[in-house]
């Protein structure tokens, strides 16, 4: 299996994610408004506009460096909670990738694992806290599982995306432990976590790319 993602593919994925965030801007605002300050749609479009701008203008061919620099672009453009967490995720995830020019399913799993761990370290959060972690962790597990079972890259991405969709819904029953949503305490139960939705939309960017390219 020679299937893999090179720097150009990653740039294309980032552009997919940007388009998705633009389209879901108001949805994210509404989700964040329910238990936050309603800026998530604004910051995520800012974050991925900056990411895309960087990505489309760089000559970088190392996926690792490309992903780390994407994180830095996001940190600068969108220093909100979610912006900073995602920036950290890209930086840590990119750093963890060993592959030189092309990344496979195993690398992708490693990327998401480090992405998740980076956010947990930065946010002092853990699974079950009703955060983006509750989507990122199932994604990571699914990718590792697919890699171990020698699934194709596109299969692995598809499975992870479906799982992320379910994981978002699973956040509804959780009680928020971090950020503004935590002030709602018991009242946070029954509402979908806004940040988790962002995690799913990132995965959706990969899925859309994979659908149209493999």
């Amino acid at each position, binding site marked *: 299996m020679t299937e893999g993602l090179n720097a150009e593919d990653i740039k294309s994925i980032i552009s997919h994610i940007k388009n998705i965030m633009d389209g879901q801007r108001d949805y994210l605002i509404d989700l964040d408004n329910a238990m936050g*300050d309603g800026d998530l749609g*604004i910051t995520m479009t800012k974050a991925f506009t900056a990411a895309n701008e960087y990505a489309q203008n760089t000559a970088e061919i190392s996926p690792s460096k490309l992903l780390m620099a994407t994180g830095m672009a996001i940190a600068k453009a969108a220093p909100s909670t979610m912006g*900073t967490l995602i920036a*950290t995720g890209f930086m840590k995830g990119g750093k963890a990738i060993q592959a030189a020019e092309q990344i496979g399913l195993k690398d992708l799993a490693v990327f998401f694992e480090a992405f998740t761990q980076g956010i947990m370290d930065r946010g002092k959060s853990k699974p079950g806290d009703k955060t983006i972690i509750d989507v990122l962790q199932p994604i990571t597990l699914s990718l590792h599982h697919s890699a171990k079972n020698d699934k194709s890259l596109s299969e692995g991405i598809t499975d992870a995306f479906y799982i992320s969709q379910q994981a978002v819904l699973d956040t509804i029953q959780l009680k928020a432990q971090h950020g503004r949503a935590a*002030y709602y305490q018991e009242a946070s139960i029954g509402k979908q976590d806004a940040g988790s939705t962002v995690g799913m939309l990132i995965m959706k960017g990969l899925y859309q790319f994979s659908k149209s390219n493999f």
Partner: protein
Amino acid sequence: MKKFINEPIHFVDEMIEGIIGAHPGKLGYAANDLRCIIKECNKIKGKVGIATGGGSGHLPLFLGYVGDGLLDGCAVGGVFQSPSAEQMLHVTKAIDSGAGVLYIYGNYGGDIMNFDMAAEMAEMENIKVEQVIAGEDVASAPKGEERKRRGVAGIFFIYKIAGAMANELATIDEVKRVAEKTCANVRTMGVALTPCIVPEAGRPSFILGENEMEIGMGIHGEPGIHRGPLKKADEIINEILPQILSDLPYKKGDEVSVLVNGLGATPKEELYILYRRVHHLLKQEDISVYKTYIGEFATSMEMAGASVSILKLDGELKRLLSKPASSPFFEQTQL
């Protein structure tokens, strides 16, 4: 949205341009970035640098406390948005004089993560960084969970006291110690009457009925303790002051400083009507007031509302509070 603005997206940068233009020789900026505000003066060798940062829309918070006997720098974010770690790093590098830099900021997720990142980056550049996170809003988390509490107007006291200590060329550990002591000794509770509008959003982030108030609401509209019909000034104080006093608790014989803070649209007349009742109740409790601060110290743009903060003093805090301080937004002569 009745605001004096031009394009909403330029709100923060034009505001800073106005501030820098209005106070030459007092405030400047680092790294060619208007959002990296620093005190314009010669660095004092051996003085701990104090930096803060946070979202815009809270003037005089945060950058208004950059001045003599106060802070040395401030990273300025978008309205209600954290500034970036990179901007914090720029400020840190600009104000460090070799004695290290203390970050003092409010307990909000975005700010914490970015200051953490900035601290890591600063340490890579061999700048010693310490952090104190202010969180004193008793309405935002119950006693026992103090670390979850939001930082609101009480942060003013931390700036004031840490700034005075740093001015005495104390070590970073000493400055951090008094900042933490101040944190531990201050409690705040507020009431919101109307929302405010984030310029880029163009509409209020929450709605309060024509005759409603929310006790304990945060300065970005975070939920408080309860919402109900607007009460009389004295009744409001009767409700919030005991919650403040019992939390620390403040006791008979204590000496305190009181801050009655306007959230933006509330006139000073009303703040004094609120203070009047605070004064009576403290007298009843035999708690003596050393110094009052009444006015706008931490706002939410044009939000109507107010908060009361009480700082319990000891000899050291009192001495540091009494020191002169001077910024374009805050002046105090030696008490």
